Every structure is written in C-alpha cells, then in structure tokens.
C-alpha cells in the first residue's frame, strides 16, 4: 500500500469515527474571553457569551427598541427622576432560587457603582418597593435610561443579590456565574473552550421571539465557545465542519466564502467603525483645531477601508457616527469627511502653523485593520506634507501608553455599535484623548438633560458637527464584519447582531 | 621448504590515479614464521597490511598484484566475504589498544562475537575463556565481564590478540601492536606473539618501525621504504650484514649506549611522500652511494648467497669475503 493511501485511509477512518454532536453548538471565537461578568467589562466576547446566561430587565426588539424582558413594565415620574419597574413573576436563577426585587436592587446598585457603563445612568438609589417592584431614583433625567438597561454590553444583568453584593467591585468568579438565562455556566477550559449548558428550568417569556426580546429558547444542549485566533483557521474550521459558527472573518476572505455552499455568510447588522483619536491634553494637536482639520482633510477613507477591509460589500465610507436608518443617524458636519485632498490639507496645515513636527501615531498590530488604516493614513498624510511617525506596539502596550498624554498624538482604535450616543467613548471626558472643550460640555448637557427624543437628536447633530470642527476623533468608516456559519445552522436572525445569540437557533 | 600460507606479489595500493602508496610489494610467509615488515612512518607498511586484510579505507584500493592465502586469491575480499567463502583464517591486531575495542561492549561479548562468526561448533563463552587463557590473561572469567576501559593497555592488546585467535588464523597480522605500550609490557606481548606463532603454527606478519623488535622477534625481515620493499632476508644475516644502504643507515641510526662515539650516524634528509616519488630509486636523494643510474629507470633486485634480496644498484658487500 502506498504511503498516501495509508495516510488517506487513516484520516478517513478518523473522520468517520468522530461524529460531532448535533446537540452542541461550536462557536469559534476570535480570542479567549475575559471574565464573563458582564456588568463590569465591556469586552464584546464576554457579552456574546454572557448574554446566554445573564439577562437584563429590558431587551432590544428587532427594530432596536427596548422592550420589557425581566421587567413587565414601568411608570416614570413627571420629573423623569423616579422610575418604578415591575418584575416578571416566576423567573428562577440557575441555582434554583426565584428572582426577587432584592436581586434586582443589588444588581443595579453594583452596576451603577462599579460598572463602567452603569456610572453613566446617574442612579441615586434603587429600592425594592414590593416583592416584584423596584423603584429607581435618578440624580438627573436620563433619556437613554431604557437603552442603557437593555444593552447587554457592560449592562445591568441581574445576578442573585448574594452574588452581586459579595462581589462588589471585583469580578465575579466563574463558580458564581448564576443568572436567569436559557443557558447556564458549564466550565471554562483556558485555550480550549467555554462551555454553557442548557438551563432546563428556564422561565421563558410568553411571547414570540423578537430580536433579543420575547421568548428565548435553548435548542442546543451545550454551547461551546472555542478560541481560534487565526482567522484562516476559523474559516477553514467551519468549512471542514469543525465549528458551527465563526466570528470576525476577515474582509479579505469574503470573496472566498460568499459563494461557498459549505458556509453561510452572516454579515453584521451592526457596523463597527474605526476611530483615530487625537490628543487634546498635550502635544502639537492639543488645541490646534486647524491642524486637526488639515489632517482630516488629507485622509481618504475609501482607500483606508479598501485596504483594511477589501470587499466593497463590507464597508461604507460614512462620516455619520450612526448607520443610516438608526434614530441617531444624521449627516451634520460630514462634509469634512474623507476629502482626501492633499493640497487642501497642505494649505490648512500651513495656515495652522504646522512646522513639520513629527506626529506620533500609536497603533497596535493586534488589530490588522488598525494597522492597515494607520499605514494608509501615514502615507496620505505624508503626501500632504504632514510628518506622521507610526509607533507600532502591541495592544496591551497601547492601552498603557494611551493613558499617558505625552506618549502619543494620535492613536487608532475602533468602536462597536451602541444604542445611544452617550455611550460613545469620545463623549467620555476621561477617555484617552480627553476631549473636554467648553463647547462639548454645553452641548452634552443639552443632550442628556432631557428624555425628549427630538431635542436629544438635535443636540446629537450639533455634537457631531462639533466633532468635525474640533476633530477630537476621526471616524474611519463603517465596517460590516461578517461571521460564517455551517450551512445547517438556522438562526432567528439574518444579519449578525453585534453579539450573536443562539436562543432559538438550531442545526 | 613448506608452502607459504600468505603470498603477496607485486601488490600495488593506490589512493588515486598516479598516487601509489604501496608500489609492487611481494613477500611470502610460511606457517610458524614471523615476517617482520619494518619501515619508517608513511612508507606504506600499514597499507600493505590493511590491503592483505581487505580493510583498506574508502578511497584507497588495490590496483595491482595478488594476495593469496593458502593458494586462494583473496584480493579485494572484505573479511566477512572471506568468512563466507571459507578463506577467513586471517586476523589482525592493531596499533592502538586504547581505541581498538568497542568501549560499550564487554570484553566477553567482543570475543564471543568473533567466535560466533568463525566457529559455529564452539560454545562462545567457553571458547572465549579458552582464548583468554591462551593470551594468558589471569582471572579470565572475571575479565570477560570487564569493559575495555577497565583494562590496562597491555591487557587490551592481549584481548585484541584473543579476538584475532578466534578465527584460528593461519596468518596473524600485527600492525605495530606494541608501539603504544611501555617497554616492559612490550616485551611480554612480543613473547606472547612468539609463543602463539610457534604453538599454533601460524604465519605472522609483524609490522613495526623498531629494528630492535624485529631483530628479536622476526624470523625473516622485509624493509620497506617509500612504498616499496628495499631489502628482505633472514633475520640473522640481514642484521649481520645489511645489503641495502637504507637498511644499513637505519641500523646505524640506532643509539648504542655502549658506543663511545657521541654522535649518531644519520641519514640526511627525510623520506619522500608518496606523491613526491620520482623516477628511479626513491632512496637516491638520501643515499651516500648514489650514482646517475640510480635516478633512472627501475632498480633491479639482487640476491646474495644467503637469499638476502636488495633492490639496489650498488648493494653493500659483506665485509667477509664472498
């Protein structure tokens, strides 16, 4: 027997010998998940996995509108500072105990005290005003409160009161991953997988599934989230049937999979977008808005997106911070977006008194898109006579360095889809870049001071214009990442949500 | 005269085209006879012996002549092929007792291995003990379990001889077997070889650079210079009256503590390397009796009455009248 035939038959026999269970969903993740304590961290992967275990009082429906979920409804006082929420009856935690108002109060208190997103709510107090009734008091009206309550990323998921109060500001450890979701925690094996198993006593909402809201149903016995950092490997793994679902497939691979019958392509419904922050605290860009506009004018986002993403279906050079169709979408200020005009930029730079001082652009290699975009920008800026030096570091170092104002002038990052502009990082004064001009503060006050949607929309449009005027950050463009799934996998959604969820999914 | 067990004639060994290391060497060895092959380093004596054993290193080969063991031509046969063809009764002892035994195998294993190859009838352990007794190693049973590094040089050389005897050799080739040993030990090993030669009636080709050893051990002597034999003869007449100037020169070089002359006789210059040998007599450049004829053409062999052969145009005549 020839060598090839031996190898071939061994491999074939081996393949036959390993049926992959139809009861397990194998999800190839881009990396190892950090802590799944959703309240504390904003890591995407933690939300993707955690949302199957932990649930929020509200949940977005298919049209991105918050709907009651663990709650059944609420009443709001006239001054918009007091909110009374009634809870759904019969919800049980994975440890068998019933969810009560105390659990909700403890969870919300922890979230608002320690959670990075929770602080933005401005919760003054939460009280159990009945076995299934919670009353929240806000320090100021917050128009975004319900969205914030529904947003699973760094959001107010409900833990048992003991767990929430015992953990305080620390991350909850895996043995205390107790939630109300359709799946409960199984085990974490580092570098191998995180496993969730079906929660048989799940209290399903008695309504059809609608986006994230409605009746969630666990059709798989287990969910396994398997870290597969190499994108090629994630893709070939799905093609070979090793995984049912793989997230974050590189844009450049789109051409290979879009017509491949062995995979289904799930383009993201929620674009992420690249951001290049400018340093408002120190350095040559500190308050030189003119120079910043010169930089903006030299950038051609089409090129950057083409290089970093590749497939035209997967990106859109759009200056608006929210995608078209979203309530927050507007075009204010976006004329200045992606001009790619080297001459204009050069003129602006001269006008701004730019003397050729090197501008340090901090970028990490861990995200290929950041690096690709930075490379293109560097080249475009050089064409406009603006001297940019790339400082290439790994992501961990970048996170450290960007906290030190003297170490950088610009840095590359990206931003995920969010339900409300208040969650934009650039809106946070303490986020590296430290944009806190008076104009910003004035507009921000207008924006958060009311829950009237129209007023808030208008204020947001002004903020967006201000961003294009003071350029604290440059938006690169919308990137529609795509995931792939095995052909047999059916999901209740077409476009992949920001945090793909698998209740109601089967294969 | 008995028939020779080993007969080498016109042996030529080459390391390449026009690069002869051994140039037409001929000699016979009779059973029970020790032939001393003597010469300085690089004269080709070791290559002659390796050619006879079929152990020439790669790149060096026999390019002419014949080697016959009991009348069978064994030229170009490696030892194991000789065993297969039933003409393997020839063995060799090498110069370096320190490196010639496999360091990771016990003495007994190494001897038994040789026994198994040659002597299927014998019980290897018994035969191994017998062989050790033959080479007079005391406490044979214990020594069989020893590793080579646990033995002294003299003992190792005895083990080497025991291994050689395993094939009940008709001819034993000993290539400078005592050069690495101290004189007192050398004497013992030489005595052993003499005794075994006599008792087993083997022919021995004893290779050495030491004229003293040859004089005391060999029955006949062959003197080699620059790849060829210059003189052969029985040991007594040869030492009494060497005929070739080189042989005579060598003898004169030996320091004689009993002589009063503070100076030693010398042979000027040094031996040519194989690739430097020119036409004519290779010793001509160093010879005190050289004449034009020596630098041209082949040199004839001449014999005297006692059968002493010399390859010289002007052999030394005996002082005694002919």
């Amino acid at each position, binding site marked *: 027997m020839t060598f090839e035939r031996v190898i071939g038959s061994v*491999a074939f026999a*081996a*393949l036959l*010998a*390993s049926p992959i269970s139809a009861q397990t969903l194998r999800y190839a993740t881009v990396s*190892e998940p*950090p*802590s799944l304590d959703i309240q504390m961290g*904003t*890591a995407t992967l933690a939300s993707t996995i955690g949302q199957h275990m932990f649930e929020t009082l509200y949940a977005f429906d298919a049209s991105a509108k918050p709907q009651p979920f663990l709650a059944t409804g609420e009443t709001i006082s006239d001054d918009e500072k007091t909110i009374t929420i009634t809870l759904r009856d019969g919800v049980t935690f994975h440890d068998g105990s019933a969810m009560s108002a105390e659990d909700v109060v403890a969870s919300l208190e922890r979230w608002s005290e*320690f959670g990075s997103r929770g602080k933005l709510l401005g919760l003054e107090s939460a009280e159990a005003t009945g076995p299934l009734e919670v009353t929240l008091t806000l320090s100021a009206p917050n128009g975004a409160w319900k969205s914030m309550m529904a947003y699973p990323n760094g959001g107010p998921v409900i833990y048992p009161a003991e767990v929430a109060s015992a953990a305080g*500001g620390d991350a909850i*450890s*895996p043995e205390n991953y107790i939630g109300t979701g359709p799946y409960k925690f199984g085990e*974490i*094996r*580092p*570098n*191998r997988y995180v496993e969730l198993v079906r929660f048989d006593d799940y209290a399903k909402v008695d309504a059809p599934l609608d986006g994230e809201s409605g009746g969630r149903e666990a059709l798989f016995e287990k969910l396994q989230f398997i870290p*597969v*950092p*190499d994108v*090629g*490997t994630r893709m*070939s793994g799905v093609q*070979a049937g*090793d995984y049912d679902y793989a997230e974050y497939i590189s844009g450049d691979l789109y051409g290979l999979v879009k017509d491949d019958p062995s995979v289904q392509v799930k383009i993201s419904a929620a674009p992420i977008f690249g951001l290049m922050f400018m340093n408002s605290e120190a350095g040559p860009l500190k308050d030189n808005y003119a120079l910043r506009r010169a930089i903006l004018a030299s950038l051609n986002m089409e090129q950057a997106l083409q290089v970093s993403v590749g497939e035209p279906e997967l990106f859109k050079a759009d200056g608006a911070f929210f995608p078209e169709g979203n309530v927050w979408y507007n075009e204010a200020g976006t004329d200045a977006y992606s001009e790619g005009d080297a001459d204009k930029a050069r003129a602006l730079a001269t006008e701004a008194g730019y003397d050729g001082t090197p501008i340090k652009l901090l970028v990490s290699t861990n995200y290929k898109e950041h690096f690709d975009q930075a490379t293109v920008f560097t080249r475009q800026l050089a064409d406009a006579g603006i001297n940019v030096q790339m400082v290439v570091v*790994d*992501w*961990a170092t970048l*996170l*450290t360095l960007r*906290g030190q104002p003297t170490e950088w002038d610009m840095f590359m*990052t990206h931003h995920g889809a969010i339900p409300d502009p208040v969650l934009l*990082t650039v809106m946070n004064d*303490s*986020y590296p870049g430290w944009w806190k001009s008076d104009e910003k503060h004035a507009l921000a006050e207008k924006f958060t001071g009311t829950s009237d949607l129209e007023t808030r929309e208008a204020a947001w449009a002004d903020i967006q214009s201000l961003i294009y005027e003071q350029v604290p950050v440059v938006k690169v463009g919308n990137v529609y990442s795509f995931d792939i799934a095995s052909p047999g996998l059916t999901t209740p959604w077409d476009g992949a949500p920001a945090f793909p969820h698998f209740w109601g999914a089967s294969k | 005269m008995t028939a020779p067990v080993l007969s080498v004639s016109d042996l030529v060994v080459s390391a390449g085209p026009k690069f002869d290391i051994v140039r037409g060497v001929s000699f016979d060895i009779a059973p029970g006879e020790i032939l001393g092959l003597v010469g300085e380093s690089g004269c080709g004596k070791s290559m002659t012996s390796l050619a006879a*054993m079929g152990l020439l290193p*790669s790149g060096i080969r026999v390019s002419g002549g014949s080697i016959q063991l009991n009348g069978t031509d064994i030229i170009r046969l*490696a*030892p*194991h092929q*000789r*065993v297969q063809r039933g003409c*393997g009764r020839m*063995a060799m002892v*090498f110069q370096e007792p320190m*490196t*010639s*035994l*496999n*360091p*990771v*195998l016990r003495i007994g294993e190494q001897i038994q*291995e*040789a026994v198994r190859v040659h002597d299927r009838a014998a019980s290897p352990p018994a035969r191994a003990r017998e062989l050790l007794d033959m080479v007079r190693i005391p406490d044979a049973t214990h020594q069989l379990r020893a590793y080579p*590094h646990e033995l002294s040089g003299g003992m190792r050389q005895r083990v080497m001889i025991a*291994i*050689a005897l395993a*094939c009940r050799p008709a001819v034993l080739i000993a290539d400078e077997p005592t050069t690495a040993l101290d004189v007192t030990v050398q004497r013992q090993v030489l005595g052993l070889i003499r005794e075994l030669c006599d008792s087993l009636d083997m022919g021995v080709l004893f290779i050495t650079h030491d004229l003293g050893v040859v004089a005391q051990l060999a029955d006949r002597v062959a003197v080699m210079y620059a790849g060829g034999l210059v003189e052969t003869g029985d040991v007594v007449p040869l030492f009494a009256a060497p005929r070739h100037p080189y042989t005579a020169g060598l003898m004169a070089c030996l320091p004689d503590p009993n002589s009063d002359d503070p100076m030693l006789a010398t042979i000027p210059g040094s031996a040519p390397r194989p690739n430097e040998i020119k036409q004519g007599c290779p010793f001509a450049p160093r010879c005190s009796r050289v004449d034009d004829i020596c630098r041209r053409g082949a040199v004839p062999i001449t014999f005297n009455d006692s059968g002493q052969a010399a390859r010289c145009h002007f052999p030394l005549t005996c002082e005694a009248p002919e």
Partner: protein
Amino acid sequence: MFRYVIRRTGAAILTLVAASIVIFGFIHMIPGDPVYVMLGDGATPEQVAALRTRLGLDEPLVLQYLIWAGNALQGDLGQSVFFETPVTQVIADGAETSILLATMTMVWIVGFGIPVGVLAAIRQGRWIDQGLSGLAMLLASVPTFWVGLYLILIFAAGLGWFPSSGFPSIFDEGGLSNLRYLILPSIALAAPNAALILRLTRASMLDVAREDYVRTARAKGIKPYRVVTRHILRNALLAVVSAFGFTFAALISEAVVTETVFALPGVGRTVVQSILRRDYPVIQGVILVIVCLYLVINLLVDLSYRMLDPRVELE
C-alpha cells in the same frame, strides 16, 4: 550513581533558582500593565488601583518574588489575572495538547530522523546520501510556521485529509481519533528537528565508522549489517541521545509558533497569549514549569547517557 544523581539534582536546582529569579525579574521589567488590559477600555484609575492592590503588584519586588517562589514550592503558581483561575489549572489545561504534540513530534523525529540518518550514513557519498543530506539541511532551514501554513493549505484546506486546526481533548468526543488534529502540527514541528537529528545521526555514524574498534569489528569478519547495528549505531546513538535535551528545548520554542499557527490549546500558545495579555502569573508559571521540565529532561538524558556508556563513571 546515587551520589551523582544527588549532585546533578543539586546543580539543576541551583539553575532553577537562578532561572526563577531571571523569570521573575524579566517579567516585572515588561512595560504595559495587566490591569489596564483586564479592565478594558473604560477603566477608571480607582478600579486600576484597586485591582493592582488585590494582585499584590504594589508590594516590593523582593517580597513579591519570595511570596511567589514560596507558593510555587507548594505547587501554587498564583492566579491567572486573565482567567481568574489558578495558573496550575491553566497549565494543566494546556498540558494535554502540548504533551501529546511533543510526543507525536518525537515519534516523527526518532522514527524519521534516526533511520534516515543511518541510511544516509551507510550510503555516504552516494546520491541517496547527498539527496537526504540536502533535504535535511533544507528542512532545517525552513521556518516551522511557514511549513505549517503550507501544510494547512495543502492537506487541510486543499485535500481535506486532516483538520486544519484546534484540538479537542482525547477525553472528549472522538477520543483517540482526535489525535488526527495533531498530525499536521506535529509534522510541521518535527520537520526541522528531525532534520537536525538526521544530520546528527549521520555525522556521528560517520565519526564512529572511522573508529578503530569498527575496523576491529570488520577485521573479525562480521557482516557489514552487524557491524552497523552492533558497533556503529549503538555508539553513534550515544551522541544522538545527548542531543535530545537540546531538541526538547528547540521543540518548545517552535511549539510556541506551531501552536499559534494551528490554534492548538497548548502551553506554548498560552505563553504567547499571556505575554500579549500581560498575564504575569501565567507567564511566570508556564516558563518556570518549562524550565523545570527542561532541567529534568536534561538530567534524564545525562543519566541515560551515562548508563549507556560504561566509560563514564557514575559518581
């Protein structure tokens, strides 16, 4: 023998202590802060400070080292900052993959490198030797990840004979058939090392073949095959065995890359990931364990060498 083991073990422990100081010192020189990485984008300085205190990163370095070393002696390598599980568990989780990978790789190395090296040596100078030696040198000149990528391209993506990546435990579904996941990675990993062993085997075979005692063996009239197996190979393997410690170190290094390419849940990838995540305790623990293992393997290699070679006295 016993004294020798004691002495060598003592030396190994000294090395280990020195190495542990190096490991500890190095890692604390690394810029970048695990706390930031852990807490993510929106961390506040208070959170950072709190976490740092909790991890003991505020203590003086010497104290931190002593605590760490003391705990390590008791088998406690600390908590992974990232996974929030004991480091020992993180290592144990990667151990299965890495051990199986190393074992399979060694099988290729020994099964391919030594016989082929022997073949090349006994055919020294012939075309087969020149071909094999050339091939060996070529393999030794190829980056493992490059081989890995092309193996994936050809045998996984192209022919589909083997899975491209990952490795489910053999204790999970699929059982031993899961070993097929390791075939390509182990081949990629074995290639350069097998090439080195091949060259080493060939070279030491040729060296030994020049030894006087091999000539003695031939003079005995032993068949060439027996001369090779009994006299040459056995002595030549001594040199090869002593190279296994070195091979092991090379394996670990290259496993780091190989496990990354093939997305294997092994210790090597854990290290790389942990370096990127600044997960100090995991880096420290893994490297300490690797160094320990290296020292133990070297000790075993030395001991077996000494047992195979009677010339060396065990004292």
